[in-house]
Structure formats: C-alpha cells, structure tokens
C-alpha cells in the first residue's frame, strides 16, 4: 500500500469513532542519538503502518498528545508489562504502541513495544537508514509490526465465535418463525374444518358444482393442516437444535 493510500485510510479511520476493542494509541516516540526530525519521520512511518492494520483504529497524534498533556506531560515510566497494560486500559485503548527511535552506529532504527490491554506485550525492531524512502520505511515498519500484531489478531479471531453464539441464535430464531407459521396454518385449517362441517364449506351451488366446491374446500383444509404439522415439527426441531448448540458453545 502506498503512503498516500495509507494516509487516506488513516484519515478515514480517524474520522470514525474508535471503540475500546479497536482503539490503538501510539505514544510519541522517545529518541536517542537522533535529531527530532528524523525521529518524527520514523514515528510517522510507524503510525501509517499501524493505521493500515485491519483491526486497528488509530487515535490521531494530536488527540494522543492532548490526552498525555492533560494527564501530566507523559505517561509514568512503567517498569513492567502489567503496569503498561494498565496504562493502555486507562487510556481506553486496546493496544498501546511505544517506540524508541535510535541513531546509533550510523544507522536509524526503531525499537517497538506493543502492549495489549489484556496484558500481552511484544517487541519488534526495524531499520530505516537516512537514504531509505518513506515508502520503504513504511514497508519495514509494517513488516515489523505484523510480526508482533499477528498473534494478537489470531487470539482474538479464535475467541470471537465463542463469544458471539451466532448458530444457536439463528436456529432458535428460525424455529420460532416456523412454529408461529405452523400455528397460523393450524388455525386456518381449523377454521376451514369448521366451515366445511357446519356450512357445507359455504358452497352456494347445488348438485355437481356443490360437490366440486366442497371437495376443493376439504382439500384446502387438509393442505393447511399438513403444512401446519410440518412447520410445527420443523420449528420444534430447529428450537431443539438451537438449544443444543447454545449449550455446546457455553464457555
């Protein structure tokens, strides 16, 4: 993905509100042995790479800086992953991305730390020399991030079906609809039966025409009764299936 496309995607995402399950906060990088302009370039490349991740809703730098300033300049220096994870939660973020931009040994590099609000923490690095184009820096940042991002996504993907319970809902819903339809057909069949038995099926004509009319009303009643029985049976089966799958998917 080109940097401009990434930027567009980022802007689109920024305009939409982020929820706590997808919000990612990228803390302005620390820097060592590197001018602030170079460090900002590397931070921006990382920011674009985070924004391009499928399940990330990246908070804008301005919002992050404003919130950090509001909470006292910078985040407290945590000594362990548990503390950093608590910081992510306090910021209402699912993940917190930190980085140190380095300019040691004549090379530029970034050391990244990704902390999940659930406690997981992973680290990655990438190099991007001064001669590296912005596109290459983006690609290296993306590659580095994917190494640490993938396991978190996989974990989430496995857990999602367990929590959503889509199948039992569908089965029970369909079963309910079938039962309602079955009852409706049953009532219609009973009405037809009543008319046929009391008023001769409300057939006005006499003779052969009456017999045809009566037979047709009788057939209609039978069809309605048969349909009702089938729907009630199917509805019962679907409801039973929904109940079984609901119990099966209990955590």
């Amino acid at each position: 993905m080109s940097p401009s496309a990434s930027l567009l995607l980022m802007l689109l995402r920024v305009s939409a509100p982020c929820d706590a399950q997808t919000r990612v906060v990228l803390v302005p990088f620390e820097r060592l042995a590197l001018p602030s302009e170079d460090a900002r370039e590397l931070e921006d490349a990382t920011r674009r790479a985070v924004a391009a991740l499928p399940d990330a809703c990246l908070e804008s730098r301005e919002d992050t800086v404003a919130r950090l300033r509001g909470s006292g300049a910078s985040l407290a220096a945590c000594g362990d992953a548990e503390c950093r994870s608590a910081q992510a939660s306090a910021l209402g973020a699912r993940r917190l991305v930190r980085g140190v931009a380095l300019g040691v040994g004549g090379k530029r590099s970034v050391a990244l730390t990704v902390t999940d609000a659930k406690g997981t923490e992973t680290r990655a690095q990438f190099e991007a020399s001064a001669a590296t184009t912005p596109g290459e820096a983006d690609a290296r940042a993306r590659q580095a991030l994917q190494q640490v991002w993938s396991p978190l996504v996989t974990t989430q993907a496995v857990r999602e079906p367990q929590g959503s319970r889509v199948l039992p809902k569908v089965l029970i819903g369909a079963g309910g609809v079938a039962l309602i339809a079955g009852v409706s057909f049953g009532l219609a069949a009973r009405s037809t039966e009543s008319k046929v038995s009391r008023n001769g099926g409300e057939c006005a004509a006499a003779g052969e025409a009456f017999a045809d009319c009566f037979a047709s009303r009788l057939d209609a009643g039978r069809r309605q009764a048969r349909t009702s029985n089938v729907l009630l049976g199917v509805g019962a089966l679907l409801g039973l299936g929904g109940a079984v799958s609901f119990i099966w998917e209990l955590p």
Partner: protein
Amino acid sequence: MRTPSHRTLALGVLLLAGTAASAAPEQVHYALIVASNTGTESSQAPLRYADDDGARYYELFAPRSREVVLLSVLDADTQALHPGLAAKTRAPTHAALWDALSRLNGRMAADRAKGAVPVLSFVFVGHGKRGAAGEGSVSLLDGPLTRTELYARVLAPSKASFLQLIVDACDSYFFVHSRGALPVGPAYADAVKGLLGNRELERFPQVGVVLSTSSEQESHEWSAIRSGVFSHMVRSALSGAGDVNGDGKVDYAELRAFVAAASQGMDDVRGQSRVFIQPPALDRAFALTNLGDAASLGYLLVPTGLEGRLWVEDARGIRVVELHKERERPLVVSLPVGRGYYLRTRGREASFAITRASEVVDAGGLRWNEATVAARGAVQDALRDKLFSVPFGPRFYRGYMASLGITPSSDEADAVLVP
C-alpha cells in the same frame, strides 16, 4: 523556457552550496594508549590492573578509530583474557612512544590535508608522581615521562585538531587492595599543576583533559572489575552511560557529572574521587564520544522504566559497562560485537548476545533469571555497595551543574520525546 532553466540551475547551485556549508567535516579518530604496571622507582609497588585497563581502553577505542596503538606489557592473566592482543602491543618505552606519535601525526596531517578533523585520544594508566622540583611525571618502562616532555613532544607537535588527554595515574585509583601509602604523592590541586600546569595548558585550546588524582596517596583498584575504578567509570560513561541528554554524545560536562554521581556514595575518604575534567577551550561542547558515528559496535537499549544499578559483563567475566539509571529516560550503551553478555543487577541477570555491527538489543525484552554469581569477599563491600549508588540522569545532572554554577551547553534532557 530559458528563465525556468536558469532558475533551476541557480536553485541547484544554492542547494549544493547550502549542503556543502551545512555538512560537518568528517572526524577521524585515533587513540594512543600507554599502560604500565611498573613504576620508575623501587618504592612504587607494581599495579595489578593498569595493563587490564590499557587492554580495555583498546577495546573501547578500536571499533570507532582508524588506528589504535597500545603500549603495554600485558601480564599472563590479561593475555589470557585478551587473546591476540599482546601481538599488537609494544613496550611502553620512550622510543615506542615517540615512534607511535610520529606515525600517528603523519596520518593526521594527511587527514587534515583532505579536510577531515583528526581527533587523538591519548590515554595514560599507571604510576604518577611529583618530582623534587615540583614537576609531575608518569612512569614509562624506561623512565618517567615528564610534564616538559608531555608539552614539548606530545602536545606541541601534535597534528590532531582535537586531543583528548585521559590520565589515570596510580594515586587516582579508588582503594580496595590497600598497598600502603606511596612515598610521596601530590595533593589534588598540586597534581593538576604538577602534571599539566594550567597556564601552559591554555596555549593548547584544542586539548581537553580528563585527569584523576585522589586526595590520599594510595592506589585503588578493584579486583571485581579487574580495573582501576576511575578508568572503569570513564569507559562506562564513554560507552554511552554518560549521555544524559539523549543526543548520543558524551561531552566533558556529562562525563564530569557521571563520575561525580558514580562516586558520590563513597563516604570513605580513601574512595572519594578527585577529578579534573576540562573541555577543549576551542569547543567546550566537544564530545569525547559520539554513538551516532558509524562503528563496528552493537548496542544495548535500556528502556524507560528499567532503573537501578546495572552492569554488563561479557562472557569472559569482564565488567564492560556499569551505571545507575534513572527510571524516566531510555539510554543506549555500545558493546563490542561477537560476544555473549550478561546484563546484571542485584540478584538478577539476563543473557544476550551481540552478533553483528549496529545490532540493537532491547533490554526490555530480555528474560531475567536469578543471578548465579555470588558476591565476593567482605573487602569488596564498600565498592560493591557504594559505588554507582546514586542514580545518574537528567535530575542529577541539572542539580550537579547548578551546584557548580554551570549552565549546561545543551539541555535536551526534557526533549527525549519527539515533539
């Protein structure tokens, strides 16, 4: 069509001129290390670790220098710890010193002719004394190197654009193995005057000085680090631990503050450091080392949040870097390539390796285990407990410089976060 092309040409010329004007000339580093365990007088007890210090200064400067000369006689233990190094050394004699200086001056003159900025680090580790006439000297194998010779044959003819003079004379060592008082030793101020002479130094504005001398006339080495303590502090600072503002450079003010912090906990007067650190008058912000320069070194990133007294030992058991880090800032230290290391703190250690140049190891991702190395004997307790007992970082640096009435030349300590 003609006008735009002229404009483009003019813009190109301006850009080229601007680039040429803004590009700093290349610094080329050399180091000449003289390390001698022996004194020139029979009353001077031999040192144990001056040769070790010489070997470690060699390892410190070699990856970032075009040429490093080591004049020392390495003892058996030191040769075993530094295989192959003995073959590169020459004895610390006057002849070897003049020969090395002559060759290095030739190379530095050529560098200057090409527009480069040659920087020479001249390091002496060994015995020092003041003669009857008040002239200071340091001991070479075949006799004293006097102050007169230092000025006349080392500083005056030097072709270096900047010369960094690091002197760790025997009486500057902190004390662990007391060998008794040396016969006559200079007091702090006298030693500075005796060896250098402040007025004479003013004639060499390109020379910066890092000098240690203690108030007591006893030699202080620490067997736990197989080194003189002052040299251990200097090497730690120059490896990056002294970079308080995160700009990758360690200047003279930072080194001075680092040494002050590292030795502040030593309340025993015998262990207190007496240092004289003065930047080159030509450029008081001149850096003794720059981690940003290309070098065949690896790097250990100690991230924000990791704090306390930390030290890095290599697989040989040599303590390479030591520091007491403040929690609120990251720092990076340089380490030689191709070795295994242990990052240690009290009771815990984490192993790692530097396998290639420019590799950065993030200490935040290391797996810590219970330390397997036991503390040494009780005689080491004072240094083990009190050295590096004060955290060094922006807070200490600001307070220390304020106490000296000095305004730091660059205060980027608050700007570690990218604006």
